[in-house]
């Protein structure tokens, strides 16, 4: 018996019913895909704001630095490291840094500050310093400092004033220096805005008597998903160097935990939605059953076994499901891709608060091929479950009763 031909004919015969059933599946898929992309998108936002604003995807330090961030735990960026990094295509760019503490002194005010030696060409876009410049100009290749706006106001510093730094350098050498303030940036985190002093990396190295050593190299990848791979490669090729290679979530586990906790609640929501649309699908299948009761009765009366009828229904439903799935994916995919590339801007109070936190006030949509498959499978399972009742009814059907109505 040619189920496929028969099922196709059945589906065509009652286009309306077929379409309505397909629609409910389409909707399930569409809803699931858009929901999940929004949820995953928000995690992307969190990761982005952490990774892209400062930490980077991966960092290289001297072994032991992250647990003991002293100026003595520095390392040399030798040829081997440079060659290895150059050879990895997934790396977008790297930012070398010298980070330590110092006392800033202006007049008779002293304040502890965080000194960050950077390569301005790289860091200006990495940490978005360009967009955060409030006064003056960014660092260029002459000696100077870029300071946070709250720090500037506490110390009463304007552009072209002199900032004095005093601290302890490599191997205990005294670190001291004078730096003209070139510019003032407004950093989103009030805490950092009150503490950060950016210097040219050469100036920072000189200040702390470091020669060419660095405290860290921040690595930005082209794609969030390459982190594991690149980390592994770096670890393998550089295992003789006395360095540690850490992913952002190893450096900031709290953020990852927050995302995981959030993910749990997102999944709960997703399953709730599945449940609801599941009922919708069940409803349409139920309707189909009632409508075609007589039809099935006739078929059984004419000699078709109940099991065959059931199989026919399964084949029909599978086709409807596949078409519904495809329709759902075809419609959601372009939308998701579009909003993935053009995040939805948010407005109003919500946006303001986000900006205060250094978050871009946008709604991000994530694009992962994996979950297309996941959601499709889930919808298939839901359809299968929804079919149970109708199928059992068909199997138990009594032709005479069915025809009589």
């Amino acid at each position, binding site marked *: 018996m040619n189920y496929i031909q028969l099922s196709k004919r059945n589906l065509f015969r009652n286009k309306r019913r077929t379409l309505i059933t397909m629609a409910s599946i389409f909707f399930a898929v569409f809803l699931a895909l858009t929901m999940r992309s929004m949820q995953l998108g928000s995690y992307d936002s969190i990761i982005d704001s952490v990774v892209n604003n400062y930490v980077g995807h991966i960092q290289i330090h001297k072994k032991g630095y992250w647990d003991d961030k002293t100026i003595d735990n520095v390392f040399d960026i030798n040829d081997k490291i440079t060659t290895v990094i150059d050879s990895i295509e997934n790396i977008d760019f790297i930012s070398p840094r010298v980070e330590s503490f110092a*006392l800033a*002194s202006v007049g008779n005010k*002293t304040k*502890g500050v965080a000194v960050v030696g950077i390569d301005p060409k790289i860091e200006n876009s990495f940490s978005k310093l360009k967009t955060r410049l409030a006064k003056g100009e960014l660092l260029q290749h002459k000696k100077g400092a870029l300071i946070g706006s709250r720090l500037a106001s506490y110390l009463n510093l304007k552009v072209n004033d002199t900032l*004095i730094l005093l601290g302890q350098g490599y*191997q*205990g*050498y005294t670190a001291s220096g004078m730096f003209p303030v070139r510019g003032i940036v407004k950093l989103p985190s009030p805490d950092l805005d009150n503490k950060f002093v950016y210097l040219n990396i050469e100036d920072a190295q000189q200040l702390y008597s470091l020669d060419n050593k660095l405290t860290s190299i921040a690595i930005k990848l082209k794609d969030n998903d390459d982190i594991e791979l690149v980390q592994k490669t770096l670890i393998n090729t550089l295992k003789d160097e006395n360095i540690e290679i850490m992913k952002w979530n190893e450096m900031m586990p709290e953020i990852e935990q927050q995302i995981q906790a959030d993910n749990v609640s997102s999944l709960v929501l997703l399953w709730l939605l599945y449940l609801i649309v599941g009922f919708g699908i069940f409803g349409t299948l139920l309707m189909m059953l009632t409508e075609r009761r007589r039809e099935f009765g006739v078929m059984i009366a004419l000699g078709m076994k109940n099991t065959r009828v059931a199989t026919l229904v399964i084949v029909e439903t599978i086709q409807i499901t596949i078409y519904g799935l495809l329709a759902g994916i075809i419609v959601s995919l372009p939308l998701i891709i579009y909003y993935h590339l053009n995040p939805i801007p948010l407005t109003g109070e919500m946006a303001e608060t986000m900006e205060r936190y250094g978050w871009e006030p946008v709604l991000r949509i994530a694009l992962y091929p994996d979950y297309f498959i996941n959601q499709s499978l889930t919808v298939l399972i839901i359809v299968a479950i929804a079919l149970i009742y109708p199928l059992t009814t068909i199997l138990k059907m009594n032709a005479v009763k069915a025809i009589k109505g």
Partner: protein
Amino acid sequence: MNRKISILIVIVLYSCNLFAQDAKEIIKKADEKWQGMSNYMEMKMTIVRPEYKREITFKSWSKDRDYSITLITSPAREKGQSFLKRKNDMWTWNPNISRYIKLPTAMMSQGWMGSDFTNDDVLKESSVVTDYTHKLIGSEILDGIDCYIIEMTPTEEAAIVWEKVKKWISKDAYDQLKSEYYDEDDELVKSDRGYDIKIMDDRTIPTRIEILPADKPGNKTIVNILKIKYNIKVKDSFFSQQNMKRLK
């Protein structure tokens, strides 16, 4: 019978008291011998770490227990820095930035010039007599020298982090040959040792002191006294910010 007992008790108590006084006296004598009323010192400090070794030489003037000025004389990149202590405050002058900076509370627990001697130690060293109660707990022979062992406990009001400090003072010469610093769990946190007793100016003192942090076995700081002059004539006004700049 009763009278005899009470007299005995009084004698015992008196001698205990004597003992306590003795302990305090011993510490006082040792402190005065080491510091004098005022002094001028030239010293070399070697900071030893597993990865490196650094040497600094400096001159220092001090008076009473409250004032001191220190001038760094080598190496070249550190030369010219000076430190002023007046009672409870410490300032530093750095010629590279032409600035006086008052050391804030946050820097107190940092090592002075990167050594194992903290800024706090520098400020508090004057209080061995007044901030503690002292008890003679025994004697020991250290490097062939017979020493009193005195246990010092900070008074309730004293702003001292140690729970207990033990000092070995030589019986003949009142030299501080060893100190041990304990935390409240009775664990040793830091110790220092005095060696190389020589004649310096008008007295013999240990001329090499080693400071050893207990939790970092590869670390130590060695201070060698190269020259010392006691009871120099120096006015209070010598210890001023302006002078920090002028010293050579």
